[in-house]
């Protein structure tokens, strides 16, 4: 496919066909030369834990299967989801970044310029998806670049290229939306009642769409109501400060005007 600057691109991650192989994680680390953290196994197959400075793709293994034996027909499966930066249209990280290190690229993706970032970590406080991590060695905030260098060289992002089940698809954003909608309709027609798309409305539309088979919270994604920007608190917080300042100054003036001899 031709990847053209000036056009919006996106991922569509269909969690219903994710097999948890972690090829995306490996391809991402290989291409981006990420050494990774020390592996840590918990109660499951997840040895990377979360998205952070070293993990720009992270396969979630969500064990929602009860330990007691199930009868036939009640079968439940683990949920698996290859999580990634959403490259939000209205991005919280980009909004707060004081250095303008975080930019929107010619492919409409969100990119942290490593030569501009000074490691203040305001973007980490802002990102509602816990996507960005702080690299102690480089002193930088890091996250998925959407394989910016590969896009500039007409190459598909490494994770999408490596995914053996095509759970991760890459392409023109509007085309990805169409593919996602068609897949949703197919699953719903097959009786998967919980199937839903995530990323159509949140933050003005995400550039990483997901087909989920449970509610977003089950995958640690805020639902539409909770997908809110940091700037929502600007006006009322400053207003509270202003009222406090006025009251403080008036109170101090009254206190200073009283005769000093009074108790």
């Amino acid at each position: 496919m031709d990847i053209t600057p000036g056009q919006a691109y996106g991922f569509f991650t269909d969690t219903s066909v994710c097999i948890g192989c972690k090829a995306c994680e490996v391809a991402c680390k290989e291409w981006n030369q990420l050494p990774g953290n020390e592996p840590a196994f918990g109660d499951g197959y997840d040895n990377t834990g979360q998205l952070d400075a070293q993990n720009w793709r992270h396969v979630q293994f969500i064990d929602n299967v009860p330990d007691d034996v199930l009868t036939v027909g009640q079968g439940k499966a683990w949920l698996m989801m290859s999580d990634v930066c959403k490259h939000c249209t209205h991005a919280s990280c980009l909004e707060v970044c004081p250095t303008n290190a975080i930019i929107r690229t010619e492919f409409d993706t969100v990119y942290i310029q490593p030569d501009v970032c000074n490691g203040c970590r305001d973007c980490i406080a802002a990102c509602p998806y816990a996507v960005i991590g702080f690299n102690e060695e480089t002193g930088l905030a890091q996250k998925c670049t959407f394989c910016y260098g590969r896009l500039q060289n007409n190459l598909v992002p490494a994770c999408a290229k490596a995914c053996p089940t095509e759970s991760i698809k890459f392409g023109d954003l509007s085309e990805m939306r169409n593919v996602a909608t068609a897949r949703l309709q197919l699953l719903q027609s097959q009786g998967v009642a919980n199937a839903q798309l995530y990323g159509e409305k949140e933050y003005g539309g995400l550039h990483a769409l997901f087909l989920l088979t449970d509610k977003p919270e089950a995958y640690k994604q805020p639902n539409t109501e909770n997908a809110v920007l940091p700037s929502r608190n600007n006006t009322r917080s400053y207003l509270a400060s202003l009222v406090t300042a006025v009251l403080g100054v008036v109170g101090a003036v009254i206190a200073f005007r009283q005769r000093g001899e009074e108790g």
Partner: protein
Amino acid sequence: MPQHFVAPPQWEWYIVWYFFLGGLAGGAYLIGTLLRLMGDPRDQGVSRLAFLVAFPAMVICPILLTLDLGHPARFWHMLVNSRTGALNFKYWSPMSMGAWALLGFGLFATLSFIEALVQEGRLRHGLARGIADVMGGVLGRLFMVLGALFGLFVAGYTGVLLSVSNQPVWSDTWALGGLFLASGLSVGAATLAIVTRARVDAPTTERKLSRADRVFIVLELVLLAVFFATLGALAGRLFAPRWLVLWVLVAVGTLGPLLMYRAPGAGRRGSPVLAGWLVLLGGLALRIVVIFGAQI
């Protein structure tokens, strides 16, 4: 209850001390300005002391912030885009606003400091005396008012900075800016009360400071109540057993001084100094619990 799936920014001790000293510097500068503008000659020694206190507290702030950066040598990226050379000014990003406000406040605090040194007879350099002459006039008063506005901003925006995020607790309230500002004013007044007792014989002004701090503490307590009210059930996160000692310090650092300042003859028995230290302890504990409590 709001959903949060965020990662903590790992803002720790440098930020705690910055928030504390920023509040102290802003509060002290405002008090110095008000005492100067209101013109009671008995207060002028403490007014000068306020500017002498505000400056060193302010100077430490950018140092702490720089040390907290992953790339300290890139501190100037806060103000200038290193790629384009254009100024970075994002009014909707409190961190960007704070960087400029700190720069502005730094200018005012430095010049007021110089003026105070000249007036105290501890600096006789020609340029410094020229600055002091200008600061002594109408222009100087206007200058101090502007400086006080910057000081108020520095003392209060730190709470706004926390709220303009998606972190649990911080982003679930609008009261933090006001709370930190009220606490900063109180900490500023308390610091001056302590230093005044040690360096200036100004019992009248000491009583004025105590009265002002009473107002600031009441304001802080009201905002603390608003803070908890806006958080609702989320406030429970800040009351984990590990934070209880800090909340005790916050209570002792607000209610204690409030009672001590009210005691008859308080100004003559050294209790304003003890009350002042309690305020400082409470102000520090408040910032520690708010900053760490939301991130752990």
